[in-house]
C-alpha cells in the first residue's frame, strides 16, 4: 500500500512549499485524540526522520511515521473546495466511523 496525493493536492502542496521558500515535503500523521479517538496531522517537513516511510506522488514527497502508517495506509490526500472554504481532505480506507466534524475518526 502507499500514500498518494491527487493531482490537485500535489499542485497545491507544491505551490505552498514554493511560496514558503523551504521544506522537503509533507508529513502525514495521526494523533490519538479528538472526539472520535484519532485525528489527522498535516505539516510541512524541514527534516526527514530516518524512521519515516517516504512516498512520492506527483513530485511531492510524503513522509509518514511507521506507527501512523498503520492507520492511514492507502490514504489518498485530496484538495477540494467546499463553498468558500478550501483545503485538504483525507480519503482514508481504514476509517470505520468519523465524528461529525470529520477531523477525527476511529478504525
Amino acid at each position, binding site marked *: 500500500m502507499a500514500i498518494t496525493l491527487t493531482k490537485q493536492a500535489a499542485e*497545491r*502542496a507544491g*505551490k*505552498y512549499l514554493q*511560496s*514558503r521558500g523551504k521544506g522537503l515535503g*509533507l*508529513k502525514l*500523521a495521526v*494523533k490519538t*485524540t*479528538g*472526539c472520535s479517538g484519532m*485525528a*489527522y*496531522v*498535516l*505539516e*510541512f*517537513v*524541514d*527534516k526527514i526522520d530516518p524512521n519515516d516511510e517516504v512516498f512520492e506522488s506527483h513530485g511531492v514527497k510524503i513522509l509518514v511515521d511507521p506507527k501512523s502508517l498503520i492507520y492511514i495506509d492507502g490514504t489518498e490526500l485530496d484538495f*477540494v473546495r*467546499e*463553498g*468558500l*472554504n*478550501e*483545503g*485538504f*481532505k*483525507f480519503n482514508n480506507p481504514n476509517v470505520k466511523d*468519523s*465524528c461529525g*466534524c*470529520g*477531523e*477525527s475518526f476511529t478504525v
Partner: protein
Amino acid sequence: MALLQISEPGKGTLPHEHRNAIGIDLGTTNSLVATVQSGVAKILSHENQNNLIPSVVQYQTNTILVGEAAKLNQDDDPVNTIASVKRLMGKRFSDIATHTSSNNLSDEKSYIGIATKQGTKSAVEVSAEILKKLKTIAEQHIKDDILGAVITVPAYFDDAQRQATKDAAKLAGINVLRLINEPTAAAIAYGLDKKVEGNYVVFDLGGGTFDISILRLSKGLFEVIATHGDTQLGGDDFDEVIFQWLMKQSTHDFQDPQLKQKLKTLSKNIKEKLTDNEIVSVEHSFNSSVNIKTKIDQKLFADLSQHLIKKTIDATKRALKDANLTIQDIDGIVMVGGSTRMPVIQKIMRDFFKQDLLNDINPDEVVALGAAQQANMLVGNSNDEHLLLDVIPLSLGIETMGEIVERIIPRNSTLPIAMAQEFTTYKDGQNAMMIHVVQGERDLVSDCRSLAKFSLKGIPPMVAGAAKIRVTFQVDTDGLLSVSAQELSTGVQASIEVKPSYGLDSNQIKTMLESSFQLADEDKENRALAEVKVEAMQMQEMVERALQQDQNILDEPEIKKINKALDQLRESLKNNDRNLIHEQIDQLNNATQYFAQLRMDQSIKNALTGRDIKDMKL
C-alpha cells in the same frame, strides 16, 4: 468534513482547536480581510469576487448596506451613505472645520454625529458595520472559530484614533490581537523581515491617509525608526483636484447633492483611467442641461496635483531627516496603497530615490496580507518571530516656568524607553513643584497636548535653584507612560501613570506635527520671549525682596532710582516686546549696582563683626 490546512512543523493543532486568525486592513476607501492558510497569506473575497470591500455604509429605513451594495446606491442617497468614515475616527466636530462631506454632521461633544435614517451614528458605529461585514466574509471562508484579528492603522493615528478603532472592533465582536501600523504590515508582506539588514522606506498613499515610514532591519531586528505623513492626504484629494477642475469646465454650480455626488464619482473614474492612459477624454451628460466635454492628460493632472505631490516629497524628506539617513542609505522603497498606482507618483518616487520601487505585490492588498501574517504569528501558528519595535509618535516633556516645554523623550524614540532630567526650584523656600506632563512638538505648553498633572510636595526650604529634582519618564512596550519626580537630597518622591488613550483631550494632536514645522520660527520667538519674561520676573522679585530687607542702607534718591527701574520693568512685561524687556532688565541691573555693592559690604561686615582675625580662615 472539515478541510485541513498544512501546518508548520510541530504546530499542528487538535480538532476544534485550530488557531484561526485574520488580518484586517480597515481603509478609508476600501477594506480587506486576509488569513494565512497552509503558510500562505491570501485575501478572503466577498463571494469569491471582490477582494476590496468598499468602506461605504448606507443606512436605509430597515436595513444597513455595507460595501459594494452601499457604494452602488451612493449616488441615489448620498445623505444616508457614509464613505471615508475613517477620517472621522477619534475626532471631534471642531477638528473637521474644512471637512467636505455629503452627510449631515453634528457636534456630539466627545464625537461627531452623523445623521442617518436610523438615527445619529458615530464613526465608531459606522466602522463597526464595515468590520462586521469583513468578519462575516472571513467566517464564510474559514468555517471555524476565529481567535482574533490584527487590524492595521496609519502610523500617524493618535491614541484617540487607535482607541476608536479598537472600540469599533469590540462592537463588531472581533477580538483584537493587536493594532499594527500599516507600513509595518506592508514590510512583513514583502518579507523584508527575512533579510539580514537594510533601511527601507514604506510609501503608503491610500484613499485618505498618507504615511511614510522608515524601517531599519539589523540582525533580524525589525525597527521603525521614523514615521511621517498626513492623516488628510490620499486618493480622495486627487479626486478632489479633478472634481474642482471639472467644475470649472462647466457653467453649472453643482450645489445639488445628487449632482455633486455624480461629479465626484466621475472625477474618481477619470483618475483611475489616467493610471493606464496617457490622455483621457471626458464626455458626460448629467441631465439635459448639464454636460461636460473635455480632456485631461498626465501632464495636466501632474500640474493640477502639484501641491499634493509636494506634500508627499516634503514628508519623505522629513522622515529621512528624522532617521538621519540620506537617499543613498535606502535599500528599498515599498509602494503601498491604491494611489501609488498613479504613474505620476511612481515617477516622482523613482526620481527622488534614484532606484526601482518594490511594487510587485498588489498595493491594495499588501497591508492586509502582512496583517494576516502577523495575526498568524501572534496566535502561534508560525515558527518565525518578528520583533517589532514601535516608536513614540510625539515627544513627551514637562512644563517649565514661562509655560515652556522641556522635552524629555524626543519623538521617534523606540519603546521601551526611560529618560531622566534634573530640574530645580524657581523661588526661595519653594516646597512643592507641579509636574505637568505634555505631548507634542511645539515649544509652548498651550500648543501641546496636556496628558497629566501631579505635584511633588515636601521639598525642604532652600534658595531658588539649589534643590535638585530628578524627573524620570518611562514608556513601556504597550505605550504606558509613567512619570516620577524625586527630590534628591531628601528622597521625597511622587509619580503618576498615564495611559494617553483614556479621557484626554486629543483634538489638537493631528495638526501638532505639521504645525511644529510650519511654526518653528514663531516657536523660537515665543520661547525666547517666555525666557526673557521669566528672567525679568525673577530679577524683579529679587530686587523687591532686597529692598524689603535692606532699604535702610540706601538714601532717598537711590531708592527712587531703583523703584523707577522696577516700575519700567513691570510696565514692559505687559507687552510682548522682547527687546524692550531686555533693555529694562539691563536698566534695573544698572540701577541696583550700587545697592548690590552696599549689601555685599554689609553682609561681609556682619559676618566679620565680633570675630577675631585669628579665627578667620583666609
